[in-house]
């Protein structure tokens, strides 16, 4: 299909970003398990092997430390590797390469060795994959200076942020949400070429600011619909980037609404919500009409059983209820 069309799935948007980046720059390479002829476990890279061949779409053994490390080497040598970790949880077996090596390379070399490296992974719950295949892993990356971290929620951002990540001179962790792969959304090939580090107002409103990422964004939007029915006008901000964080956008919104609810798909104890609340409190204390609230997962691994998994995730109803209580 052509990029001129107006609707794409999230999966296609990622695929086309890879394709277009590879067409535009032959230093762009992909590495990962079964991403070649097989098209990737999530079928994101389907067709890319056929177009670009095995030297640019490289299947690897099951060796995440090995191929993330190799991607670092490729980046050092002038390539622009995009390593696919498949499930976000698998970053755990490559964690040293990500946080101790990639994130620190530029600094340790005093700027001699920037690392233009992208690490893609599919995170998140809802697919009944249980505790080892359901984490968004956002929290793992929140105090790792040297990494940029993005987390798109829709096709347009998925495309733009991946292009930006590949163009970026630094390691970028690009977290996808596996539930969103089939989700369709409007897409303009020459549309918003958002850079890393800018949040997006997904819905404007003036009573309360809901901040979310990934699959929590559609839930927040749905909560906003519920709220609208009750006469509460919610603003929804899609963070999109976790590092750097677009604090000004959030602070500006809360200054207008006076109320903040964060919604994240992880337990709040180590999430980005705490940082956001603390920053908003520090910068807009007087503008707050109520203490900000955070919604997240319970303090538990993700259970397999659908009833439990569904209960773990913040529902639009629960989000709306918290916001309503805050406004009311």
């Amino acid at each position, binding site marked *: 299909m052509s990029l001129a069309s107006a609707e794409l799935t999230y999966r296609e948007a990622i695929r086309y970003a890879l394709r277009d980046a590879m067409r535009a720059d032959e230093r762009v390479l992909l590495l990962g*398990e*079964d991403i070649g002829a097989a098209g990737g476990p999530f079928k994101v890279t389907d067709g890319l092997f056929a177009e670009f061949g095995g030297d640019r779409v490289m299947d690897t*053994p099951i060796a995440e430390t090995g191929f993330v490390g190799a991607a670092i080497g490729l980046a050092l040598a002038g390539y622009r590797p995009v390593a696919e970790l498949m499930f976000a949880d698998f970053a755990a*077996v490559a964690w040293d390469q990500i946080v101790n090596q990639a994130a620190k390379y530029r600094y340790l070399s005093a700027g001699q060795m920037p690392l233009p490296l992208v690490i893609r992974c599919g995170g998140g719950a809802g697919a009944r994959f249980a505790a*080892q295949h359901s984490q968004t892993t956002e929290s793992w990356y929140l105090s790792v200076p040297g990494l940029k971290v993005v987390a798109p929620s829709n096709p347009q951002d998925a495309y733009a942020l991946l292009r930006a990540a590949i163009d970026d001179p630094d390691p970028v962790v690009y977290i996808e949400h596996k539930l969103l792969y089939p989700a369709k959304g409007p897409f303009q090939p020459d549309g918003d070429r958002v850079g890393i580090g800018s949040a997006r107002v997904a819905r404007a409103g003036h009573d309360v600011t809901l901040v979310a990422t990934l699959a929590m964004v559609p839930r927040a939007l749905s909560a906003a619909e519920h709220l609208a029915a009750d006469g509460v006008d919610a603003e929804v901000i899609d963070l999109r980037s976790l590092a750097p964080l677009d604090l000004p956008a959030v602070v500006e919104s809360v200054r207008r609404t006076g109320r903040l609810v964060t919604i994240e798909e992880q337990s709040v104890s180590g999430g980005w919500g705490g940082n956001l609340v603390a920053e908003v409190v520090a910068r807009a204390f007087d503008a707050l009409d109520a203490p900000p609230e955070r919604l997240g997962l319970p303090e538990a691994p993700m259970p397999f059983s*659908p*009833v439990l998994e569904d209960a773990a995730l913040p529902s639009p109803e629960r989000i709306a209820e918290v916001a309503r209580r805050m406004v009311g």
Partner: protein
Amino acid sequence: MTSRKPRSSAGRPAAERPGDPTLAGDLLAMYERMAQIREFEEQVHTLFLKDLVPGTTHLCQGQEAVAVGVAAALRRDDYTTYTYRGHGHVLARGMDMVAAFAEIMGRAAGVNRGKGGSMHLTDRRLGLMGSFAIVGAGLPVAVGLARAAQLDGGGRVSVTFFGDGAVNIGAFHEALNLAAVWKAPVVFVCENNLYGEFSRVDHTTPFEDLARRATAYAMPAEPVDGNDVLVVRRSARAAVERARAGGGPSFLECKTYRHRGHSRSDPGRYRPSEEVAAWMARDPLLIAQAKLVELGVPDAQLEAVRQAQRAAVARASDAALASPPPGPDELERDVVG
């Protein structure tokens, strides 16, 4: 033939001479167990098609002889660890089918009350100590279990199952080296089914004969016909007895094949049809059947075993379906003690 428990060799390998009076009985028991696993997996697939199995499943049809042959070499108190493709491993050691089905369907009657699912079937009463959905992650844990057994001094053994794809990950290497250094009583059972997901083993490893990997740890290793349950049992017994006797770890490369795709969404089309056909002809159930017939067991008896297992599986599946989902309090239970 109603026992579900694999016979325990109680530390002494049984004879296997032709004419061995126990051979037909043993093989029939193992055949029964393999038939149970086969029927179980087929039923999981059926349930899945009916949308009764959430998430993903990794079935093991074609690999039954490995799980059953190894289990037949174990004592009741030995430890096993395995993977997301673990239905065969747990049934081979006697997991209750209702508890397994219920777990796979996310029900309260599940062996882990629906919290683990297909990839995480465990039952510590049966020595089923860990089912790992991260490739390779179970091997170091198995070495720790073996080290514990060694410290305990009771001759217990730890057996860990993993695939051909797992031999390329760091945890594999660290575990084998640690086991070698500790001379830990652990048996590493590699189920070389030729594919890790959609990649053939020779695409990800510089050779197909994975037993070669063990030389890097000075560890006894053996390629094994993983589709002949008697061969598997014989090799497993040797390795298990070596471990029990303080001879340290061993590596068994069981050559086998999965009949279906990697997981529920995979039709397995990347495999050449001749390869599939050749391996289907070496179906472990067929091999066991032929041997049983040779040993004088009538066809009708084999068919009866198969029918009985099919019926037992159907009953267990129905019973599991009757279980409600776990209660909401399960969500935050069992996180910490």
